[in-house]
């Protein structure tokens, strides 16, 4: 039997050993997938000028949808992804990423400066220089997330 694993790092080794003992082969080509609850991939597949690119979640600064296109921004690069913003919101680990408006998701540690608005808004300057807003809908979730 061949299995493809989708496990978080802390449980991956333990499960691999168990499967080896039971003589179950682990392969990325396997059609059967063993997925852990709350599993989040540490990378996403995007496109750049050269073709397909794998972007590590740690490198992502923010994700923004502009019209029908969704762009993934790192500190110095910009990638395009086929995924919609709501799909990305469910694929990304919630302790590391937060949606701040209908069109923007930011990485937790990507904020360089924050300025509160007089209404329920925040204006953010990110570490990659981008300026994004926390809208009224996401205001309290954002405050809760950062404990501010």
């Amino acid at each position, binding site marked *: 039997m061949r299995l493809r694993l989708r496990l978080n790092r802390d449980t991956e080794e333990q499960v691999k050993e168990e499967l080896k003992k039971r003589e179950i082969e682990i392969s990325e080509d396997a059609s059967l997938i063993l997925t852990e609850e709350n599993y989040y991939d540490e990378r996403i597949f995007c496109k750049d000028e050269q073709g397909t690119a794998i972007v590590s979640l740690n490198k992502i600064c923010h994700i923004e949808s502009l019209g029908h296109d969704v762009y993934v921004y790192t500190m110095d690069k910009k990638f395009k992804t086929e995924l919609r913003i709501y799909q990305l919101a469910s694929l990304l680990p919630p302790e590391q990423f937060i949606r701040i408006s209908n069109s923007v998701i930011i990485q937790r540690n990507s904020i360089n400066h924050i300025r*509160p*608005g*007089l209404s329920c808004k925040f204006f953010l300057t990110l570490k990659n220089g981008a300026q994004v807003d926390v809208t009224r809908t996401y205001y309290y979730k954002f405050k809760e997330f*950062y*404990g501010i």
Partner: protein
Amino acid sequence: MFTLLEIYFMIAFLAVLGLLGYYSVYTRKINRRIQSGEVSGKKLVGIPRIITVFVIAFLSFGCVVLSFYLLKEDEESSRNDFAIINIVEEDEDPYQAYGGNPRLNDPAYAGLYSKKSNAGYDKEVIKDGDYIFTIFKRTSFPDNFHPDFLCFAEYMGKRDDLYVSITSSFVSASDTDHHLDNGGVSDRLLFFGNLDPGFDFKIHFDLIDKAAKESFKASSAEVTIRLN
């Protein structure tokens, strides 16, 4: 002393100053907290909530200031006022004069009070010259509907060819306010009005004989009304 508008401007200025101060502190703190990655600890009150609190506080304080202001204005305004009504029944257009509050300018008052007795008033009768004064002084707590005093002034003399000069005065230790009225002699007049504490109401009649060759002043009469 400051006007109400000045007080409002001062409160608004202080509120805006306080808000700007809090905005600056809040911005600094949330930036520090986000940079440190610290999620625990007491959450800060957001700007919209602070604005709401400031607006409510401003309005509440404004209401309190307005209440005190109106109360003070009410205390400072004088209650001294009076009216004179000729209550000769057959007179269709009763002679009337008033000093102070125009709402007393109403002959209907004469029909509400009797010369014999009035509930809530002490009666006193004084005779001076050709006049008899029947005075009623309020014994109940002052209100806006019943005058503090009533005084029926009746001319008991025989002459109807005289002219009368009436001086109605509010007199206190430091202030005197005279009102003069002239006319033909009337049999019966009703004086009524209100008095500030420390004031007396003085009624003085001078009867003038314009036809006299030596002395124009035929007689005079005076009464002073003092509330207990």
